[in-house]
């Protein structure tokens, strides 16, 4: 296993970003999926739902963006 890791070449930052994007990807999917479902069930609450959807999206996305910035910071 260690030999295999030693063989990996290229930018580790890219791999790190890929790992960092897994969680937020799932999270954003859940947020927008449920948001769309909520709007479909209750179209009159569109304003409140959309706004909360974007706040949740922004919080989940922050993790992926930290993963994106980190390789540039820790070079």
């Amino acid at each position, binding site marked *: 296993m260690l030999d295999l890791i030693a063989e990996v070449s290229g930018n580790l930052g890219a791999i790190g970003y890929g790992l960092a994007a897994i969680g937020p990807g799932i999270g954003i999917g859940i947020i927008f999926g449920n948001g769309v479902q909520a709007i479909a069930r209750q179209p009159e609450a569109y*304003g*409140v739902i959309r*706004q909360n959807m*974007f*706040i949740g*999206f*922004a*919080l989940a*996305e*922050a993790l992926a*963006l*930290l993963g*994106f*910035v980190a390789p*540039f910071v820790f070079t």
Partner: protein
Amino acid sequence: MASLVDLSASWAPGCHLGGDNGCGFPAPGTEIFEFGKIAEYTIFGITFTIDKPVILVLLCSALIIVFFTVAFAKPRMVPGRVQSMGELCYVFIRDQISRETIGKAGDKYIAFLFSLFFFVFLINFMGIFPGAQFAPTALFVYPVALAVMVWLTYMFIGLKKQGPIKFFTNMMFPPGVPKPVLVILAPIEFISNVIIRPFTLAIRLMANMFAGHLLLTVFIVAALYLASPSVIGVLGTAASGVMVVIMTGFEFLIEGLQAYIFTLLTASYIAGSLSNEH
């Protein structure tokens, strides 16, 4: 003025796929975010450097000030063309962001949210504006300055409206939480409200613009690099060119969305500082 129009520092003319000089794909890196200085002056021992992003920000500020001054200088009952545009912008901020998040009590802060939204949106939009092609918000200082402003605003409002003790106890001890959980929750709430909030606010805006600029540059440089007399070259150039157009459209969406989210989060932080229940 050469630094204003450079496509990418890393792409050398004559560097093509299968070319004579045998250069590989010149992947753009962080050097595309560095600009040559145009002017420099020193006040009290601090050196200020004027470069392209500074000029863009100044231009955008001037544009916003001039436009909305013209729009609202002489308000009339029956609005003219410029005034009705300004009113549309105002109503958007009031109804979509302020009233939805803060309620009627937030009408005092519309001016702040309004300036924030249009400033962020316009300097983001510079990222795809022909000739500018760079969003100054992709450099960390600009979002940090905005986030510090937002942080000062919501901390000040909270301290003023709720008083220093109630503000922090309301922040750290949400009602209806079991006592043992509070041991862990209180410090987390404090850290997330006071430290993480402004930090992520700045990072979010910066990273989105940074990624967008990098992505566009990668595809533009790829289109130029692949331009060569071969099947792969022609197809690759065409694909990259199409991607540039698609990504530019996508960037426009992201820029608007980020300005909206930035303002929305600011509004929700102000709402949190105003209300007493949590």
